[in-house]
């Protein structure tokens, strides 16, 4: 579904990623680790075409992201759910409106009306539906971000440090949510520092752990 082929990315003369290849297929579950500044978020952004590689090719659903027209790019992003570390909500909208946002922009609210109610229950935020994002806790925001990422039933879910601001109990709940999604056939890619999170996920589903080091992507499964 998403493939990175010999991808390099430079910014301001510094090479962040070097000759990286990665394939996110249906039902795959990848963790991406590495120190801060290693390029995890950059790799994630390349996957949903927020960035274009300086070398190599990124393909999303068979189309090269660098040459996509802007409408195709938007339609592609609807098939990729993204959970940001800072969640990126619209603070003037209620939580339910934020979670519903992908459906709103796609004009599909009627078709997926039940999805919102189901998702609010699934992530345990039914009672917070009418609250505004700034009034929510870190864990609630992360769960809401995950709900927003999957409300359109995307083929791929990308999560950047989804447990960065939450306690261990909440991390466990988020892992279970991601594993459930993976079992539905979604490709999952999670960037994280949290080794406990990785171990917890490995106990629930087959996962592959990758590490970014010096701009190179290496397999890190044996370390865990």
């Amino acid at each position, binding site marked *: 579904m998403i493939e990175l082929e010999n991808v390099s990315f430079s910014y301001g003369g510094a090479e962040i990623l070097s000759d990286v290849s990665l394939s996110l297929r249906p039902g795959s579950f990848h963790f991406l680790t590495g120190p801060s500044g290693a390029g995890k978020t950059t790799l994630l952004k390349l996957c*949903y075409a*927020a960035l274009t590689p300086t070398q190599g090719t990124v393909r999303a659903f068979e189309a090269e992201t660098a040459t996509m027209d*802007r*409408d195709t790019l*938007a*339609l*592609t*992003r*609807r098939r990729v759910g*993204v959970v*940001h570390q800072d969640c*990126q*909500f*619209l603070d*003037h*909208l209620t939580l339910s*409106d934020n979670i519903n*946002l*992908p459906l*709103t*922009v*796609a004009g599909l*609210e009627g078709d997926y009306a039940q999805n919102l109610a189901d998702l609010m229950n699934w992530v345990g935020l039914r009672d917070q539906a009418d609250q505004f994002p700034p009034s929510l806790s870190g864990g609630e925001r992360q769960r809401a971000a995950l709900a*927003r990422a999957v409300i*359109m039933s995307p083929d791929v879910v990308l999560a950047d440090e989804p447990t960065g601001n939450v306690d261990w109990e909440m991390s466990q709940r988020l892992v279970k949510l991601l594993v459930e999604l993976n079992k539905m056939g979604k490709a999952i890619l999670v960037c994280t520092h949290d080794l406990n999170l990785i171990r917890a996920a490995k106990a629930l589903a087959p996962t592959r752990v990758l590490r970014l080091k010096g701009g190179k992507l290496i397999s890190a499964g044996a370390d865990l």
Partner: protein
Amino acid sequence: MSFFQGLWAFVAGDARAERTVPPSGYSVWLVVFAAAAMTFLAVFVSALSQTTARVADLWSQELSRASTLRITADPDAMEAQVAAALKVLDTTPGIASVQVMTLAEQAALLEPWLGPDVPLELLNVPAMIDVVEDENGFDGAGLRARLAAEVPGAVYDDHTTWRAPLVRAAGQLRVTAALALVLILGALAAMVALAAQAALAANAQVISVLRLVGARDVYIARAFVRRFTLRTFAGAAVGAVVGMIVVALLPNDATSGGFLTAIGFQGLGWIMPVILPFVAGVIAFAATRAAALRMLRQQA
């Protein structure tokens, strides 16, 4: 979807989609004010343009068939000279009517310069004869030649020397008014586009989130375009109404033999200030959409 369905959908809007962009704050009210002020000015310029057009038509049509014979002579010979001139005019083909101006009519003409109660009978003022040609016209050069031979004190004036520059000036005024109207509407477009760009820049984070969830550029632009178009239309409507009221209340002095005409709109001319808010709305739509899409492309 037909044009009118599309227009209605645009005006009605999509409340949920609309809410994705937060209120635009004071910049929107600046747009309303700018639209009102610009449309107010545009109404005045339109009134001026239409007035100059009417004046030019008046001068062109009414004076083009009229001419004047001025006879200067000693008081004793004046009556004979006038009679001779009338004889020449009576026998000139193409003249519809001639009228010798009375002293009272001459006094009325001179009153703006000399004041009332001027004793013209004591002054040796020239006699004046108004000549109006018929639809076939007459031979001006031939008439001049006959008058020179038979009425030596007569000076024939077909108003060409002063009518042409006046008509030309009126035409230039009209062109200038049209140019001013274009500049006013252009300035409105620039103001709306700048305000829209400011609103887009202020909402960079919102746009980033909308893109993240798969919003197309036209979707993001639509919320801004609709907002700025409707507010521009509302401001322009207020400006147009106030402008029309003020123009309607201007002094309506159509005296002086019809040379002066009331500044303002007449008949179908009132359509112009009525359509100005719609023109402003269309301009705002085009300017905001172009600015928004250009800025969204640059932000990618």
